[in-house]
């Protein structure tokens, strides 16, 4: 899914040089257009395979969204040094992604044609978004915008040779790729039909699963139908997507309605604050937390009412959630729960190198690591993966299933995991003082020291850090700091 990161990141320069496009950032139409662009990306066999293998967007979509947004903001930064650094980071990140898809075809996230296609889908979706909402762009704006997207691709790839120089040629290129190269990939199907139906609640609404599920049951299928209807006809035909009666009208209505928000006073819709608010963990010490906790209390009451007024379906409707709670009493969770919440980052039901790579990626992103610390962290995780694989993969299929994990839990805290903890400590301890101070702690966990930490004189020592990490990773103990970091959706 890092391909998506790149992709979203690249409208940034456009807005930088064209202040009037700044509005696009906070334009609700973008939400629809990004989904559409992501489906088109995922329909490309190379990109789709990379997404299916590596992305955390099924299991942790909100964290993923936030990372994409932050990356986009950096690419948009007025300071060229920040932009170059982010481009380099994205390139390093993509360079770690290669492999082969389910049919054995190789993919590589550094593939130039695939990366050009990602940028192309974003540009095309921006244009289409304007057309569908009844405010088409004029030729000049479109050309300027196209030039900006090519500049972005050049910033990542060195040059933009994979995208035609001229806008007219671009449409021929786009149509050709849609006709010839796009496929009905697994990843595209997941986005269209699974992602929104199973979208986990963001941190903010975590306490209101009923309310979230009720809203999702309504909005999920709608988003799917809207996105399908907005895809190019040749692709819909090829992928065998349904032509639902009324869907085109619904789709145009949605785009039009989203476009109408331009009449709202400026600053009413601010993508950044929306995303940041959604990602606030329950016990954050953020200044907004008070408003948020007031809101959360309301949400909690609303969902309590909803549950109470829901008609009873028979007298004993067993509901699975409390079973999970029962299993986690005393701060421990079951092996299966830990497997799905923490280890299986890509949400495919197996523990595999991409899962641990995603964990390393998340930590590196949070700590804003440069080389060589980033490679050290990845290497430590790779060593841990080899240790896990040797210890747990009993059937020898190269990956670890939830059952294999549950069967062998006690043997988890091997030397490689301790090494991961130590490398993570060194990476977090930016000033090399041997202790983690409040700022370093905040960089990793986005919150201040928690009261129950064994902090003497306001710092966090190496042994305490390693101990906490190990008890979270191998003891499956719930931890106020690590839980928001690795389990939040």
């Amino acid at each position, binding site marked *: 899914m890092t391909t998506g990161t790149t992709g979203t990141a690249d409208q940034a320069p456009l807005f930088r040089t064209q202040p009037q496009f700044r509005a696009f950032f906070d334009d609700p139409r973008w939400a629809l257009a990004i989904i559409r662009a992501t489906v088109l990306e995922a329909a490309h066999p190379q990109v789709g395979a990379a997404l299916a293998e590596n992305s955390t967007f099924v299991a942790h979509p909100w964290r993923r969204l936030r990372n994409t947004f932050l990356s986009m903001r950096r690419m948009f930064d007025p300071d060229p040094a920040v932009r170059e650094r982010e481009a380099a980071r994205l390139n390093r990140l993509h360079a770690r992604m290669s492999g082969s898809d389910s049919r054995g075809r190789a993919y590589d996230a550094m593939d130039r044609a695939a990366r050009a296609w990602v940028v192309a889908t974003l540009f095309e979706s921006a244009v289409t978004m304007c057309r569908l909402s009844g405010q088409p762009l004029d030729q000049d704006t479109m050309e300027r915008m196209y030039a900006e997207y090519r500049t972005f691709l050049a910033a990542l790839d060195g040059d933009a040779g994979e995208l035609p120089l001229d806008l007219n040629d671009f449409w021929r290129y786009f149509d050709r790729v849609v006709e010839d190269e796009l496929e009905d990939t697994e990843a595209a199907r997941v986005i269209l039909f699974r992602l929104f139906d199973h979208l986990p609640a963001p941190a903010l609404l975590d306490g209101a699963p009923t309310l979230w599920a009720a809203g999702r049951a309504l909005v999920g299928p709608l988003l799917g139908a809207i996105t399908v209807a907005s895809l190019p006809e040749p692709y819909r035909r090829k992928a065998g997507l349904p032509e639902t009666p009324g869907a085109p009208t619904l789709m145009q209505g949605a785009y039009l309605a989203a476009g109408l928000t331009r009449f709202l006073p400026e600053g009413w819709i601010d993508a950044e604050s929306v995303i940041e608010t959604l990602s606030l963990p329950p016990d954050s010490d953020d200044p907004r937390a008070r408003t948020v906790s007031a809101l959360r209390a309301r949400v909690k009451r609303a969902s309590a009412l909803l*549950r109470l007024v829901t008609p009873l379906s028979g*007298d004993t409707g067993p509901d699975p959630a409390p079973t999970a709670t029962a299993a986690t009493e005393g701060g421990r969770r079951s092996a299966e729960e830990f497997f799905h919440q923490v280890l299986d980052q890509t949400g495919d039901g197996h523990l595999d190198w991409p899962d641990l790579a995603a964990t390393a990626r998340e930590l590196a992103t949070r700590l804003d690591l440069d080389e060589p610390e980033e490679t050290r962290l990845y290497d430590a995780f790779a060593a841990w993966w080899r240790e896990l694989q040797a210890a747990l993969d009993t059937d020898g299929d190269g990956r670890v299933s939830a059952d294999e994990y549950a069967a062998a839990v006690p043997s988890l805290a091997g030397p490689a995991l301790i090494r991961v903890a130590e490398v993570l400590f060194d990476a977090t301890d930016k000033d090399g003082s041997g202790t983690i101070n409040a700022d370093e702690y905040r960089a990793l966990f986005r919150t201040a020291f928690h009261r129950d930490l064994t902090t003497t004189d306001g710092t966090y020592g190496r042994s305490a850090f390693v101990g906490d990490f190990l008890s979270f990773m191998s003891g499956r103990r719930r931890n106020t700091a690590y839980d928001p970091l690795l389990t939040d959706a």
Partner: protein
Amino acid sequence: MDGNGRWAQLRSLPRTAGHRAAETTVIDIIEAARAAGVEWLSLYAFSTENWNRPGTEVDYLMRLVRRVVRKHAPLLLARGIRCRFLGAADPRIPRELAQDFDDLATLTADNQGMTLTVAFDHGGRRDIVQAAKSLIRNGTPADEVTERLFADHLPFPDTPDVDLVIRTSGEQRISNFMLWQVAYAEWVFPDVLWPDFRAPDFLACLHTYRRRDRRFGGVPPQTNGDTS
């Protein structure tokens, strides 16, 4: 809430019919208490000893309570009644019912009108033991334990002392009900069975209470009414 079983027996109905008939009384009394300006109302719905009743009756009660809670939740919210459940800790309470209790308490937590405490799976002695445990856990030195401090460790420490206890159906026992809080309570024992108990009976009890001479054995008077 005594006399459901006898009420049913008198009519040659199963005991469960008595429990069902009790629902109307509960709602009627909640309304009457609110209208009469009572600020604290407690209902003794199920004691720790009631688990000894036949399994089928207990099961029926659990289902009935769940239905009543769900049915009247919006009304209680709209009436500004803060609901909470005293006791309700036994693992034998069905999970769904416990969830409904939690939901109703959450839903009405901010209400400013009357506080309705439903004693469910409640035992006065258990509450006192809980408070003692909590004091010991906090490491409170023996010399510092006062009545007030002790009361702060009881469940729902904001509950004031009980002024009036109404026990229907002519029974004249405490039956382990809020033992700590009833220290200076006045007691009224109407003969009417709970399913037949109605707003006028309730008001009559309040009237009796007003004519009582409360001396508190020298303890300064507490405000608020609390009936069962």
